[in-house]
């Protein structure tokens, strides 16, 4: 009895002790779950593009390459998302075959999207309000030209992991920062931070510094002469 009592007390006490950690653990678990699964959805709003666009169709079926649409202008600036004029070069009229009964849903969707685009934007001369996944805030001057010429000049001839593309595959340099879109045949919703208005894919300064702040990437010849590419004005405006 006494033993029992003692045992019961003991187990009670142990239970109590165990119970003592449980709320703590539950709290931690709830917080972790909220922080890792719920919070990202709360802080980023998902916005969709004005209509369906497939990089895959353009590259696989039409045979365009990246630089047909994303190219440098004569003044050295980069087009990024092409303006309507570029698209209208091909899409003055609907290019996709009119879907028949045998068409797949994907083909139908592509036709519908192009029809919408041609009628609503090309015919009316309205620029498409594309949402961009990757862009830098106003205080950053990002130069595609600089990255193309400067990074390439060394990394094209480098071997192994330092190689950022080869003459056969120059797009590899693009893929250092941009995901490969050749296979992409759907619209990915754009995640926009509700607090900052930045896209979730916006590269942060520390990401830029992975290259910019590499000791090998700027030198100081000891005579006060520097060729720093990590100076503030290399990127900021």
């Amino acid at each position, binding site marked *: 009895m006494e033993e029992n009592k003692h045992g019961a007390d003991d187990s009670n006490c142990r239970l109590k002790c165990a119970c003592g950690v449980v709320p703590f653990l539950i709290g931690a678990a709830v917080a972790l779950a909220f922080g890792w699964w719920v919070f990202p959805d709360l802080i980023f709003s998902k916005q969709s593009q004005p209509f369906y666009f497939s990089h895959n169709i353009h590259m696989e079926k039409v045979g365009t390459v990246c630089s047909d649409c994303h190219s440098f202008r004569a003044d050295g600036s980069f087009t990024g998302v092409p303006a309507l004029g570029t698209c209208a070069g091909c899409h003055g009229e609907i290019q996709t075959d009119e879907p028949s009964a045998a068409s797949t849903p994907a083909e139908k969707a592509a036709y519908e999207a192009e029809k919408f685009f041609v009628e609503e934007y090309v015919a009316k001369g309205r620029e498409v309000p594309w949402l961009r996944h990757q862009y830098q805030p106003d205080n950053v*001057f990002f130069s595609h030209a*600089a990255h193309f*010429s400067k990074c390439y000049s060394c990394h094209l001839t480098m071997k192994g992991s330092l190689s950022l593309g080869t003459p056969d595959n120059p797009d590899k340099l693009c893929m250092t920062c941009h995901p490969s879109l050749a296979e992409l045949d759907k619209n990915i919703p754009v995640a926009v931070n509700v607090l900052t208005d930045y896209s979730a894919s916006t590269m942060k300064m520390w990401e830029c510094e992975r290259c910019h702040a590499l000791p090998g990437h700027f030198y100081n010849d000891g005579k006060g002469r520097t060729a720093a590419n990590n100076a*503030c004005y290399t990127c900021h405006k």
Partner: protein
Amino acid sequence: MSAKKEFNVKWGMAIDLDKCTGCGACMVACQAENNLAPVADASNKLRVMNWLVVFELSNNKEFPDHEVAYLPRPCQQCAEQPCATVCPVVATERNEEGGIVSQIYPRCIGCRYCMAACPYHARYFNWFDPVWPKGMEKALTPDVSVRPRGVVEKCTFCHHRYMMAKDKLRAQGKNIFVKGEKRGTKHSAIAEGDYVTSCAEACPNGAIVFGDLNNPAHRVYQLTHDNPNAFRLLERLGTDTAVYYISSREWVRRLGDNYLKDEITQKPEKILPKKH
């Protein structure tokens, strides 16, 4: 003070005060290019943002011996910056080929130490948010970020134009540097005139000449080397600025520094010890 940084390229100006009529076109061109907001009443000069100011100079003589001159004052882009050394957050520095003193607005905490330090009063604090008359913000350029209240800003020698000129070369597959005539020197491959500041571009009198102070082929080099009429503002402070002024009038040159009554107006290297 850290060691002075030397660069292959040193962008600079030579402003001919014998040519400036003080019309103000440069000031307006600067505001439009750099997205400065207009204000209806600009009387309070301590609150008004102006990267470039045209000052009126007087020889302080009575009529009819009076003479007047006008002096446009951008940021002097010192090689020894009084401002950068006091910035607690490294929001301003001179660390890039070209020698332009940078100002990074999101980094600035608005303490205004730099403004107190700048002997040229070339720095301005955003006391208020910039406000444009309705719709006028549509006429802003895409090249310069708009600054919110609470940060310091200043003339950048239209640094964005430097960036764009370099990009143009790169897109043409050209190098951005070329070898100089003197051994071991490099010059910017940007042709003279392909990168000029908005003020220099607008000036109908050609009073502002912009270019590389280290490149003997540039007009600005020729105007500022061994020119007895060239001077810099407060040269004896040793700030080693990149903005030279030119005047054939001694009284104008004398106003460039604080001379004692019996001192003669001369080049500072004659007054200063070799090392300072």
